[in-house]
């Protein structure tokens, strides 16, 4: 399978075979990610980290992945202090930076930014989230978490929260459709999954149920994937409070769930998961955050041609 010099833009372009290949590579990276083994797989390689909006976890896990594999990281730093503040286009920024480095990780507030960057870059672009569009590396680490902590084939999973703007759940749905997933979508009506995404994933073989109540779905699923309802989307704070409090997992919610239920969350959480759940075997979100490192190590190794 050929990943060398490939851009990683959207989950839509990934076949199941490609996903499985990345997840298998990530598994081999885990001891290095834990710091148990040393590696110089990417020695001499430089990764540019272009984050046009903040995302501490994604940025740090990419940087950790590169450093753990012996490579170096060049960080754009604050957008306010860069040429972007002077009005430079993304296309020009990419054309400058690709001369300095071997791969570029891009996070950008505009949807489609990674696709644009890939048209101008001579080195692989790894999309670390573009607007409400796609965030494929998050999806791959989500899949890896499901694989390691539960199972992927025929998974019964509930996705809850802001399904309209939450890019992590959009990409995850596309990917899960490869595994014959039974997906329950839980959201307030005004934040439901866009119709075009639902029709796409149903066409790919996923089974979809929609509801607005966590309690209706939680007892039947292997994984509950919570997302944050983004306060900034609501012009009226009272409306936000109404919705935010409706989708909350508490110790009470967990009565009657499968013992092996895993609760995931891309983090940061606000109040959608009671902190008392952190100490239960259901909590999986901090492990999930760690799994970003081996998955991103695998991707960097693959696109830079250090592994096949």
């Amino acid at each position, binding site marked *: 399978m050929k990943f060398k010099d490939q851009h990683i833009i*959207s989950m*839509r372009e990934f076949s199941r075979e490609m996903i499985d290949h990345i997840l298998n590579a990530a598994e081999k990276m885990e001891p290095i990610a834990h710091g148990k083994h040393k590696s110089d797989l990417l020695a001499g390689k430089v990764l540019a980290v272009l984050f046009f909006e903040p995302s501490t976890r994604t940025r740090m896990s990419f940087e950790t992945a590169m450093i753990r594999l012996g490579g170096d990281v060049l960080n754009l730093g604050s957008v306010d202090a860069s040429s972007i503040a002077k009005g430079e*286009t*993304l*296309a020009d920024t990419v054309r400058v930076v690709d001369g300095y480095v071997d791969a570029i990780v891009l996070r*950008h*507030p*505009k*949807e*489609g*930014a990674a*696709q*644009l960057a890939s*048209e101008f870059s001579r080195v692989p672009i790894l999309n670390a989230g*573009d*607007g*409400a*569009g796609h965030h494929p590396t998050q999806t791959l680490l989500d899949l890896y978490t499901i694989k390691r902590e539960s199972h992927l084939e025929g998974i019964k999973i509930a996705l809850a929260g802001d399904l309209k703007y939450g890019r992590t759940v959009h990409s995850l749905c596309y990917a899960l459709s490869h595994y014959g997933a039974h997906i329950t979508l839980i959201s307030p009506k005004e934040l439901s999954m866009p119709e*075009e995404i639902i029709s796409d994933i149903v066409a790919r073989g996923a089974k979809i149920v929609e509801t607005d109540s966590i309690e209706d779905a939680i007892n039947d699923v292997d994984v509950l994937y919570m997302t944050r309802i983004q306060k900034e989307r609501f012009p009226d704070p009272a409306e936000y409070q109404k919705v935010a409090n409706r989708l909350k997992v508490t110790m009470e919610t967990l009565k009657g769930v499968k013992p092996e239920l895993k609760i995931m969350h891309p983090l940061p959480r606000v109040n959608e998961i009671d902190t008392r759940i952190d100490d239960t075997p259901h909590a999986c979100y901090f492990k999930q955050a760690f799994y970003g490192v081996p998955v991103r190590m695998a991707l960097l190794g693959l696109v830079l041609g250090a592994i096949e």
Partner: protein
Amino acid sequence: MTEIETELRVRRIENGTVIDHITSGKALIVLKILGLPDSSHGVVSVLINSHGIYGKKDVVKIENRELKAEEVDRIALIAPNATINIIRNFNVTRKNKVHIPSFVEGVVGCINPNCISNSNEPITSKFKVTTEDTGLKLRCFYCARVISENIAENLL
């Protein structure tokens, strides 16, 4: 209406293009797509809600201009049943149905204000075009947002 009556309302052209079987009511959008009327060209005639074999239709006749392929592609997005007749010396020398392109570039603007194609980048908008039972669907190449209604309103 007899042929003579039609002839009186919209006269024949010597050279140019007749776009026939335009979806009823869409003729003015076809003119917009073609940048007409344009003083550098000949007479443009428009027939709206004309009676055709398959029901009402619009017809546009343009003197002294033959359409380019990309112009025909644009017309296909809003009038998928249109036919393009090239007229030379009062005779139809070529008659083609428009075909719906599988991909259009620089024709339609994305409806997503947060799409990168709506910013100051050196790119043109691009859409993958699909035809479904419910009609045409345009999926933005950049942000994947789908336009399925009011395509004409988003023409560039």
